[in-house]
């Protein structure tokens, strides 16, 4: 089916998320929609899927203008969508998830589970998916959950399939398999819209590429275009994707983790006997697919999780079992992976956020209250040093762009005298310019002799920053390898392949 979007405009208040976007996806084509985080890709697809109503413009399917008041109508017209955050119900089985909304029933609305199972088996066999219709979705690995989403869309005869950042949660191997599936789908006549910000994947699989930036289409390109060309279109200027850094001047083994084990609810081993050390002046980057224990590792180090065993020593002092305040006071700088949830208080001003970690003492507070002058001075300096674009230090930090918010977090953590920098997803959802800036800062910290532990699911970031790379898989560090390890090898490790 041919899909055409004409002049789609979508505004949220004063923000124009989509500004007159035109897009044509020919039948049986894989059309990549390339853009940075926040460029307006997901908004556009939500408009197509009927989740948002466009303020202007129209949607045509096979040259017929259509209007979708909700996802139900979009699906009935043959549009399927695999959302970035899966729209699956964790406690339901695969079959229940697939049939939800168009359930096969017997008399009286009684569910026909055998029919639903047959449907799941039939579609998954067609694509070699090997899905168990009776497995509970929450027990499945993310790669398999994504297949459930695809089967769900196909079970409704989707002829245009939108994949929104489908590779964000996949290992490189799973990504390859997904691309194979995409090709097979396109071969059978399904049109595919592939939304991503990863250049390599676009070049590998797309028939046509449309690049959008700040809500507008900036151009189309064939997959033969070079990575540099595409990157330039995407960010609007030439970017340097690697960080300049000198060989490390290694100090002593400052940060030592030994036999760290953490159990979760139901006795699941979230962290499995982790042992590693980081030397002063070194960046150890923890790579791995999201959800393999990285979040828990960061939380245990900072003291957010109890019930861990083993040992975490910083300059000889045991940190495991100590309170968060103690850990931070011991010189740990912590950049949490989700700045909106854990890094900042959105309604607070920039200045208030800057003092959050030391709200109880110097330099921000006396025994009787806050030293506003000292606080504002630190905030002003942070704005200057970190080039934070803000209306002022009194403006709520929630109004800043993602990149500037992240700079506030980093500025706050680097403000203290650090003995360890622990940064989780330091550049997630941040524009390319800010990524460069943040990476340079992290390297500066390293060069000042502080041990740095980076946790990132972005392989490019890991490879750019690391002096050594630790790969996590199912809660364990399955190997620690040099920074120049080939990407393919890292991909295998991330999938748990050791040999």
């Amino acid at each position, binding site marked *: 089916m041919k899909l055409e979007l004409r002049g789609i405009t979508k505004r*949220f208040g004063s923000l124009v998320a989509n500004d007159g976007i035109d897009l044509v996806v020919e039948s049986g084509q894989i059309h990549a929609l390339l853009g940075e985080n926040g460029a307006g890709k997901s908004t556009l697809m939500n408009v197509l*899927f009927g*989740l*948002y109503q466009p303020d202007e413009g129209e949607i045509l399917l096979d040259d017929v203008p259509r209007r979708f008041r*909700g*996802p*139900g*109508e979009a*699906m*009935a017209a043959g549009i399927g*969508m695999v*959302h970035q955050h899966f*729209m*699956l*119900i*964790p*406690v*339901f089985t695969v079959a*229940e998830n697939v*049939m*939800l*909304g*168009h*359930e096969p*029933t017997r008399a*009286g*609305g*009684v*569910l026909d589970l055998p029919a639903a199972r047959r449907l799941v088996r039939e579609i998954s066999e067609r694509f070699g998916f090997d899905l168990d219709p009776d497995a509970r979705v929450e027990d499945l690995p993310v790669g398999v959950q994504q297949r459930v989403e695809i089967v*769900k869309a196909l079970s409704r005869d989707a002829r245009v399939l939108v994949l929104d950042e489908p590779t964000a949660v996949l290992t490189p191997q799973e990504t390859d398999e997904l691309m194979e599936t995409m090709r097979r789908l396109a071969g059978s006549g399904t049109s595919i819209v592939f939304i991503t910000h990863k250049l390599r994947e676009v070049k590998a699989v797309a028939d046509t590429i449309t690049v959008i930036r700040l809500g507008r289409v900036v151009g189309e390109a064939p997959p033969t275009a070079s990575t540099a060309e595409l990157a330039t279109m995407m960010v609007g200027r030439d970017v340097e994707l690697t960080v300049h850094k000198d060989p490390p001047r290694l100090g002593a083994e400052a940060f030592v983790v030994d036999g760290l084990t953490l*159990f979760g609810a*139901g*006795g*699941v*081993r979230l962290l*499995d*006997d*982790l*042992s*590693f*050390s980081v030397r002063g002046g070194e960046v150890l980057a923890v790579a791995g697919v999201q959800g393999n224990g990285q979040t828990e590792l960061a939380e245990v180090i900072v003291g957010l999780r109890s019930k861990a065993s083993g040992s975490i020593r910083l300059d000889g002092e045991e940190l495991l079992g100590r309170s968060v305040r103690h850990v931070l006071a011991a010189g740990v700088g912590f950049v949490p992976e989700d700045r909106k949830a854990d890094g900042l208080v959105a309604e607070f001003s920039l200045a208030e956020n800057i003092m959050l970690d030391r709200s109880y003492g110097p330099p921000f507070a006396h025994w009787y209250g806050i030293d506003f002058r000292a606080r504002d001075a630190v905030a002003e300096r942070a704005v200057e040093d970190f080039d934070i674009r803000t209306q002022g230090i009194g403006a709520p930090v929630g109004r800043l762009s993602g990149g500037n918010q992240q700079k506030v977090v980093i500025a706050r953590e680097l403000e203290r005298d650090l003995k360890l920098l622990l940064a989780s997803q330091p550049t997630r959802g941040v524009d390319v310019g800010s990524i460069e800036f943040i990476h340079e800062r992290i390297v500066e910290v390293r060069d000042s002799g502080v041990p740095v532990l980076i946790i990132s699911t972005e392989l490019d970031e890991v490879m750019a920053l690391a002096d050594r790379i630790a790969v996590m*898989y*199912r*809660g*364990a*560090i*399955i*190997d*620690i390898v040099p920074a120049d390890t080939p990407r393919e090898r890292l991909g295998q490790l991330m999938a*748990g392949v*050791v*040999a």
Partner: protein
Amino acid sequence: MTAPATAPSSSLGGQLAAPRSWRVPIVLAVVAVLSLIWFVVFGKDDPTRFTWSDPGDVLYLDPTPANPRVLGIVLGVLSLAAAAASFRWAWRRRPVPVWLSLIVGIAFLVSLVAWVGAGGQITVESLLTSTVSLSTAIVLGALAGVIGERVGVVNIAIEAQLLGGAFTAAVVATTTHSYELALVAAMITGAAISAVLAWFAITFLVDQVVVGVVLIALVTAITNFFYQQVLADNSAQFNDPGTLPRLAIPGLADIPVIGPVLFDQRLTVYLMFLLVPFVWFMLYKTRWGLRVRALGEHPLAADTVGIKVNRSRFWTVTLAGLIAGLGGASLTIGYAGAFVQEMSAGKGFIALAAVILGRWNPWYAALAALLFGFATSFRIWAGGAGAAIPSDLIAMTPYLVTIIAVALVAGRVVAPKASGKPYIKS
């Protein structure tokens, strides 16, 4: 190279080496030991006579005399055995089955009843019949609560629906002389109160707890007003409904104990017996139920497959109100025979507790509601049995059992994820 090169298999081993959960076995063992100490060491030797049937019954069973201390020993040992079995389950890292906990709980309650009734007689039939009567409104309220929370709306106002249903049933039955109309009117009242709750919670995003509490206050005030202004002085005209006739099922009703408890009841009780499996079937076996549960877990996902979230939530909560309204009718025309001010007396809140204790499952919620009903029935009986220690003290024990039961299931309970959270569409 610090990590072993066998990560995948070692993480599998990690599953096996997970710490065992000893909570349930320990609680069961403590209960078993305590009951042995209480009912054996401090046991009584005056025999308790358990009577099973009235002298006039078709099938007459002789009363069973029992020595409370001997009974305590037998049941205590049984509990210990159950606790020991639960240790085996925990050792193998498997969840302890519910029936083991049930054995210990029931053994404790039976020992307690025998101990309190030492030297006297216990009419098993009346104890259980009054349990069922006192539980009906709680069970029905809990069913409404289960449906509401499953679809994502916390129905705090069950109390209001019970009270409103009770009031309407009494007035309509008296004025029209029709119990059928009274039941329908009570159900519509329950649904209407639910609809107001759903409307405010879903359309205006008012906090569900706040709307619920306000509704309870409102319905209490309205019924109090009409009771004092109209019903109290004209009870013959407005508040003399009597009770639904007992419908004895021929044959079955003559079975000792079971017969009177299950097969010689009023229509409201039979409806309760039917509604528990019916609601379970609807929730777990039908298209409607699948969608309801989806809405309570992940409304956005339901929206993306074309289910109208807020409309479905509104109608589901409103329909569940029918059941709570029926529960209200069971208080007046199903039991008391007249409306009394604030006669729901916290049963709506007990129903909410039953929803949670029953893990949002109609069967378990009904069981929990029966436990609460038994506690009330036991207190009434213990007060009459003239036990040596103050009856209020003994009356506390069923609640103690409840707290222990909550401790046993708490933590393992997984509520519907989106329960109580409004769905806001951009």
